[in-house]
């Protein structure tokens, strides 16, 4: 008798088949579904990281990047593509959005976008820091007519190992970055103000923990755990997507620092209540766990202690 023949009528055989089928579908889907990383790699395959100095920007290279990756939707002069009724065709006018918006959109990987009609999720940046600097230099020089500047005094991305030639210079840059980051957050000492600003202005979309949330019309407020302080700042001053603009007049830079410090400190806060934080989703996840773990275990125990041997079946 074959191995399978002996076991296929086993009481657990059905469950095994279901689990195998689910696993097959899950793995199959994961293997076949296009991932964001692959999609980007197709557009920007040619760009290898260069080792040139960040200060030494190359406006001509920026122009190339703009014409290759941005102009399809935003037009060569950044005026956007519109139909005769003034509706956006592929991309809006970006002449007045400012360098802060460009830096935000590109550094969070949202631009260049694969699908102009869909809200873009956060992804790894599609170009190197140097290329972004070139792009911004070109944007500032040739396209920009207004809008907020990049807040260079707010800490941005941590340095990456690949942009340094040796370990020592990378370590030094990382330490410098971390000092800058810590001093920015510690420079804010009014938790009351940061909390009030965050909970009044931000939490009704991004959630109390910055975990994000659903919005109307199929949009969503993204999770902001991975956002750098500079990106949060830029989002506030440029108002990407459905987000309103919180200009430096409405919320002053010091207040923004308090706000960013509040949310970053909260996110770094350890979970005092246990090693499983349920992603800080809250009551929905807690209710689920109470039923499918808590109550289910207790009922399994009840079944166990009242079980008795049946004559058959």
């Amino acid at each position, binding site marked *: 008798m074959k191995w399978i023949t002996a076991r296929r009528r086993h009481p657990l055989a059905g469950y095994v088949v279901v689990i195998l089928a689910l696993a097959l579908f899950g793995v199959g889907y994961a293997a076949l579904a296009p991932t964001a990383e692959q999609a980007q790699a197709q557009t920007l395959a040619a760009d290898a990281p260069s080792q040139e100095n960040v200060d030494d920007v190359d406006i001509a290279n920026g122009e190339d990047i703009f014409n290759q990756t941005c102009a399809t939707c935003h037009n060569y002069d950044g005026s956007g593509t519109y139909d005769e009724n003034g509706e956006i065709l592929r991309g809006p006018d970006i002449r007045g959005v400012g360098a802060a918006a460009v830096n935000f959109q590109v550094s969070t990987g949202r631009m260049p976008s694969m699908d102009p009609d869909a809200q873009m999720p956060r992804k790894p940046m599609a170009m190197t820091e140097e290329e972004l600097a070139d792009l911004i230099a070109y944007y500032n020089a040739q396209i920009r007519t207004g809008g907020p500047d990049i807040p260079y005094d707010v800490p941005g991305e941590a340095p990456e190992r690949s942009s340094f030639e040796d370990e020592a210079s990378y370590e030094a840059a990382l330490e410098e970055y971390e000092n800058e980051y810590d001093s920015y957050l510690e420079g804010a000492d009014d938790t009351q103000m940061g909390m009030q600003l965050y909970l009044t202005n931000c939490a009704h979309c991004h959630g109390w923990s910055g975990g994000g949330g659903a919005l109307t019309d199929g949009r969503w407020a993204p999770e902001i755990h991975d956002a750098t302080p500079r990106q949060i700042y830029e989002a506030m001053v440029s108002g990407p997507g459905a987000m309103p603009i919180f200009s430096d007049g409405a919320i002053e830079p010091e207040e923004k620092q308090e706000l960013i410090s509040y949310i970053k400190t909260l996110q770094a806060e350890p979970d005092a209540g246990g090693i499983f934080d349920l992603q800080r989703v809250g009551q929905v996840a807690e209710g689920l766990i109470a039923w499918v773990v808590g109550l289910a275990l207790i009922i399994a125990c009840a079944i166990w202690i009242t079980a008795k041997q049946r004559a*058959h079946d």
Partner: protein
Amino acid sequence: MSKTTQAPKALRGVGNFIDDRFHLAKTGEKNLRKVFPNHWSFMLGEIALYSFIILLLTGVFLTLWFKPSMMEIVYDGSYERLQGVMMSEAYASTLHITFDVRGGLLIRQIHHWAALIFVAALVVHALRVFFTGAFRKPREINWLIGVAIFALAMVEGLFGYSLPDDLPSGMGVRILQGVMLALPLVGPYVSMFLFGGEFPGEDIISRLYMLHILLIPALLLGLIVAHFMILWHQKHTQYPGTGRTDKTVVGTPMFPAFAVKAGGFFFFTFAVIAGLSAFVQINPIHLFGPFTPTSITSGLQPDWYMGFMEGSLRIFPNWFDLTIFGYALPTAVLVPGLVVPGLIFGGLAAWPFIEQWITGDKRAHNVADRPRNAPVRTGVGAAGVTFYGVLWLAGSNDIISETFSIELYVSTYIFRVLAIVGPILAFFIAKRVCLGLQRRDREMLEHGYESGTIQQLPSGEFIEVHKPNSDGMVDILESKPTITSTALADDADTDDKGVENPEARKGSGKLRRALARWYTKDNVSFDDVEAHSGHHLHHSSHEEEKEAAH
């Protein structure tokens, strides 16, 4: 217990001392030998009892440090992140319990997890009682008490959730106030009375505290004791089986076997709750921050047992809002906030009496129904569960939208449709499943069970060998009652002298007959079935025809 062995002298002394004074030996022995039927589903109520005990014990611990005061203070405790923040004393004292009281956070989490499991156990216990018809006479009063415990437990949980005065609790109280304000005429007065002025005022925490630790627990405790005394007096229901009738109970004696099981079960329940509390973070109020009326956050829900209320508020449309003489009548809040829970709890409370009215069944039932043998009741139950479940899911529609990338408004419409279509579908599906199971039972009774052995006959035909059921199984299968109603009896319309029954002519009489027809018409009859009389058995290896044991 054996009477031949004597208890140790010390125990005898204590026993005699007590018995000389309280004469407990006789009642004690009777109660200790009380029989408990053995089935896991009879333990569900005990989960609720044990979590309630855990709630009482941990709740007492928490009251030692909790300060039910809304006085604004500047926090300077040991939780560094919130130092210098203005907050109420209630919130500050909860932080104190969390970070400064030894074991405080663990006890708080045990209290919260136990609350979630308490209400969940109430629900599954109530479902067991409903689907097995254990609410029927003589247990209707205990069913009503159970419904009251369920409703009170929800309110108790809501108030407890509101006490720490953190961000979600303030939002929960705000929704509660919104529902109150929607009451016609009296709404604003009720709200002003409860809050001692405008929201949030300075009284609400201390008032909710009194309700949460004094009034409602006392009511719950009283109702739970009454529930148990009635249970003790009326005894458990039991599932059909050998020797089990409306007059005899089969099971394990209370002492020692059941007491050991129940005691062990308490510790297991406690272990699961304590395990969850030790490893899974729940309601981290120190991360939420204190509530202020300007603060609001997305993605926050009430605890699960209030989820269906949240859901009904979220999906009920505002198409029916009225303005009468310049006064708004916000039906979009009123209906989901009051009518929907009223329907659910009112329906639960009324069902035993509705069913009794339809069937005219005034007999006492101590043998529970198998759910399949009461298909309409099971269908109604499934419809109710579906309705509740859809509302409950709708309460987390933002989390669902975000997690599964569904548009928020689309999800609202999906839930609106599901809330109406889902229960109807569930009714018919559940009823059909029941009838299918009845047919299977009938088949099994007639032919025995499918053994899984394939046999080839000399003619070359293949058959599956059916084997005779055990005697116990035959008893279970043959116990199927035929559901009847007195409204459909031959003499229901006219008496034996041919005089028309005035009751049956009235509208209510006609309604009752229509309902009775609906309730009884679907039935797989077992009347002509004799156990193991089917032809398959003649081929089986056990050739001897087993007589059905009675």
